[in-house]
């Protein structure tokens, strides 16, 4: 068997990640999270008579609480593995990364474990969010006044 044939064989036998299925699942799950969030926003606006901005913040908190709780209960890891970007991109992914980091490092103690690692994964979102927001805000002030 020469190299070419061997390469073909390897390509054939390497399990292909089903990209189409992944993308479809991400679309459906992500969309579902979006709809549920919108429903909760509407409930907050109608039944607690808060402004839409505040309702979005309440919803954000609720989503974070649910994702953290499900992570702590142990089954959210599985969901994230299955739904991938569908649960990573919404705020659920942020909450999941914070809670799972805190849980994973619990055995290393409160300071060197939880304290040092709680933002291990979410830290980059906070870091680049703050940096980009700061400079875009300066640009915004210069351009829009």
């Amino acid at each position, binding site marked *: 068997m020469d190299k070419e044939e061997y390469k073909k064989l390897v390509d054939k036998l390497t399990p292909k*990640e089903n*990209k189409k299925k*992944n*993308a*479809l*699942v991400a*679309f459906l799950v*992500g*969309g579902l999270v*979006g*709809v*549920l*969030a*919108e*429903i*909760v*926003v*509407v409930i907050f606006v109608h039944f607690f008579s808060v402004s839409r901005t505040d309702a*979005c913040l309440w*919803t*954000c908190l609720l*989503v*974070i609480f649910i994702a*953290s*709780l499900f992570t*702590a209960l*142990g089954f959210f890891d599985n969901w994230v593995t299955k739904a*991938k*970007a*569908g649960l*990573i*991109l*919404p*705020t*659920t*992914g*942020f*909450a999941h990364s*914070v*809670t799972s980091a*805190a*849980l994973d490092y*619990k055995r290393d103690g409160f300071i060197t474990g*939880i304290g040092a690692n*709680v933002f291990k*994964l*979410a830290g*980059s*979102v*906070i870091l*680049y*969010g*703050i940096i*980009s*927001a*700061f400079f*875009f*805000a*300066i640009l*915004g002030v210069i351009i829009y006044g």
Partner: protein
Amino acid sequence: MNYLAAFLFAGIACFLAQLLLDNTKLTPGHVTSIFTVLGAFFGFLGLYDKFIAFAGGGASTIISNFGYVLYKGAYLGYQEQGILGLFTGLLKNGSCAIVGAVLFSFILVLLFKPKD
């Protein structure tokens, strides 16, 4: 129709994120950071306000909303307090997500044990 818009907006964002994850070497950390920065960028362009008006909960649950909220906080902070406002305003509404995640995760970590 707000619900359909919320579904489509959040769904398409996650779809694009999944394409990035599958077709590049980027990790979830990269992708969420990119979407956060994009959120701040679209906020700067004035587009994210429109996304929120159009897709409501759909636009405000994805991580890009975090970048947008930070941008908005810093921009409005400047209007109120000048340069100091950029610093004091940036995390105003954004602190909701950070404090929420830290508080809930800490309490839950005290209550639950990690799964092996």
